[in-house]
């Protein structure tokens, strides 16, 4: 009996020691999205960090890509914001304005800050205080992919760099010629297959407006009426509507692989950097990477991707920053990103990526980001801006009146800004 009592006491004491040790651990919650490959990679990085820091426990919170904003809203409402979170770059201004993110510079390693590309800094910077709130290993861009055989068949000029991108006249002329070429079912895939529930339309088509000489919103007065429905924007969207009406664009129902599908029915593709790996695997030497055409006075291209921020709710921002620095330098994490043809946001990662380093097949895309990248409007009203613009483009592509659709979208954006009293201090920026 005495022995049993003694064993119970020893067991209780041991249990108590284990429990007190477990309780002593600092838990860092990290919210992220991503496909199975990324989920596994984050899990492995967390394990490596925990092994190097036994007093820290990294708890991963997965939120599906298509329900990420809902999950974020629920976390805000239930006061369960994670310490570290992945966020889509154009939503950064909204999050900072709402008070959810804290400046990240003091929390992460200086060598990472020094390593960031200009575009990466731009996507993580809040325009009011010019402070950095998020950082990422990666960035993104869109280029014009071409099928060499078709381009040679119509005698198209193949640009060698961003400086000699096709003009609007050249581009439309080639589209017309390609539409008559045997074997070409559609001259171009603008990836309508991504639909209107992703950021694709604002991300990829916004630069067409900026290149044509207008924008989604005036970035000084933060008014959309007079900008989004201005003549250059109406002209640019009328041009795109014409491509659709002429049957030059791959329809939404045909998916997002017609450029490299059997028989190569699409001659050109206005596609993201992530499209390269799959297209090149199928097309081999026939794939040509070109800069986006100049639709007006200047070239423009998109940037921005999912990056990492530390929330104001974090009780251990220093440890969250330490983990983020660890992750951005982690070799296996970088290897996975490189194999996934991720677009570099850190210079060291670019140098280590054969695809984007000098002479690489996507080096032109990397050059394009440094010369023509325009971030999406860094304004707290961005969720409304993107939703209104996507709705307008969808209406236009389905045959709606261009001017009326853009005016309605611009009014919706301005109404949201007015309803929020101009999102001070954005209203004082003019």
């Amino acid at each position, binding site marked *: 009996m005495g022995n049993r009592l003694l064993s119970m006491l020893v067991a209780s004491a041991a249990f108590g020691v284990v429990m007190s040790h477990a309780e002593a651990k600092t838990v860092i919650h990290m919210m992220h999205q991503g*496909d199975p490959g990324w989920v596994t990679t984050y899990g492995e990085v967390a394990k490596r960090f925990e092994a190097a820091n036994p007093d820290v426990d990294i708890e991963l919170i997965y*939120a599906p890509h298509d329900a990420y904003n809902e999950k974020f809203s629920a976390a805000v409402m*239930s006061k369960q914001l994670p310490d570290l979170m992945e966020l889509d770059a154009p939503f950064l201004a909204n999050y900072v304005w709402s008070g959810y993110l804290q400046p990240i510079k003091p929390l992460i390693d200086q060598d990472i800050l020094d390593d960031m590309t200009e575009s990466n800094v731009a996507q993580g910077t809040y325009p009011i205080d010019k402070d950095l709130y998020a950082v990422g290993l990666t960035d993104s861009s869109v280029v014009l992919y071409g099928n060499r055989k078709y381009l040679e068949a119509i005698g198209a000029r193949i640009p060698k760099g961003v400086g000699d991108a096709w003009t609007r006249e050249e581009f439309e002329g080639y589209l017309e010629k390609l539409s008559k070429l045997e074997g070409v079912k559609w001259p171009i895939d603008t990836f309508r297959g991504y639909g209107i529930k992703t950021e694709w339309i604002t991300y990829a088509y916004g630069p067409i407006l900026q290149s044509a000489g207008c924008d989604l919103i005036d970035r000084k007065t933060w008014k959309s009426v007079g900008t989004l429905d201005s003549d250059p924007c109406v002209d640019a969207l009328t041009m795109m509507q014409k491509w659709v009406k002429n049957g030059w664009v791959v329809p939404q129902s045909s998916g997002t692989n017609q450029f490299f599908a059997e028989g190569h029915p699409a001659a050109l593709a206005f596609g993201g950097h992530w499209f390269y790996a*799959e297209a090149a695997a199928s097309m081999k030497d026939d794939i040509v990477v070109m800069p986006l055409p100049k639709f007006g006075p200047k070239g423009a291209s998109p940037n921005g991707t999912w990056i990492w921020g530390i929330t104001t709710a974090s009780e251990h921002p220093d440890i969250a920053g330490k983990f983020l620095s660890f992750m951005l330098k982690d070799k296996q994490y970088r290897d996975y990103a490189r194999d996934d043809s991720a677009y570099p946001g850190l210079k060291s990662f670019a140098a280590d990526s054969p695809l984007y380093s000098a002479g690489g097949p996507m080096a032109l895309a990397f050059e394009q980001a440094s010369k023509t990248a325009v971030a999406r409007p860094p304004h707290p009203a961005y969720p409304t801006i993107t939703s209104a613009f996507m709705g307008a483009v969808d209406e236009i592509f389905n045959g709606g009146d261009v001017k009326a659709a853009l005016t309605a979208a611009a009014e919706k954006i301005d109404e949201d800004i007015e309803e929020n009293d101009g999102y001070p201090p954005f209203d004082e920026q003019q």
Partner: protein
Amino acid sequence: MSDLVISTFETEAKRERSAIGSLRIVQTACIFVIALVIVSPLFMLVIASLKDDRFQILADMGSFRAFWVSNPTLSNFAEVGNLSGELAFGRYLLNSLIILATTVGAGLIINSMAGFVLAWGSLRGRALILSLVIALYVIPQESIIMPLVIMVSRAGITDTFTVQIVPWVASPLYIFLFYQFFAQLPKELFEAAEMDGASVFRIYRSIFLPLSLPALATVSILMGIESWNQYLWPILVTQTDYARPISVAIATFFGQDSIYWDRAMAASVLMMIPILALYLVFQRWFVSSFVGSAVKG
């Protein structure tokens, strides 16, 4: 003369039989077409899960090639099965089954009790309560989901099985279904039991509940499908794989840049099997209970 009459009758009878035969052929053809339309998405799902090229699945979707696979493979199922750690599908499947069984089990008891009390109970304001139950049914789940998130968060039950079961156990629709069923049963049953001295709970448990097999089966099927397909709610109120259902795990295949149709289809087939089995089991019970009650008269 009589031969002529008989011959005319025979001819007319033949014509009638032929007309009935033609009608049956048309009816059968219509049923076959309708069945084909209903079954074809499931068939397409299974076929797609056996293809090894996700782009081919997408390219085939708009044509009859969606219903054909030349080189079937189980590699997608193997890949889904091999996922481990945060993506271990076995864990998610088990979670879904626990949530389903508990929700349906508790739901049958709670909703049937509520339906019985509304039909036969002696509480005041029954009609008003019934009107409120019906009124609650028209409120869409999405409109109350955020306040509900705050409530469960304050209750401290996020990231648990409880948070995925308790809010959905009582449902206006199922209470109303049970109410309707119980209200149709003869008044004499209740009165006879009451005269024998049975309590209200005893009458519910020993007489009315055993008679309500069709309602129990219907509610089980509907509730089971609803619970199995929950997607947004588990995302909002759970953080880890501890209690998350399989519907959330499948969402990982719908990435930012790419959709992994091959694995998503295989995972969807795996997800479909338990609920299909449940449906078949309950459907048999549902039919047999009807037959049984008809024979007993």
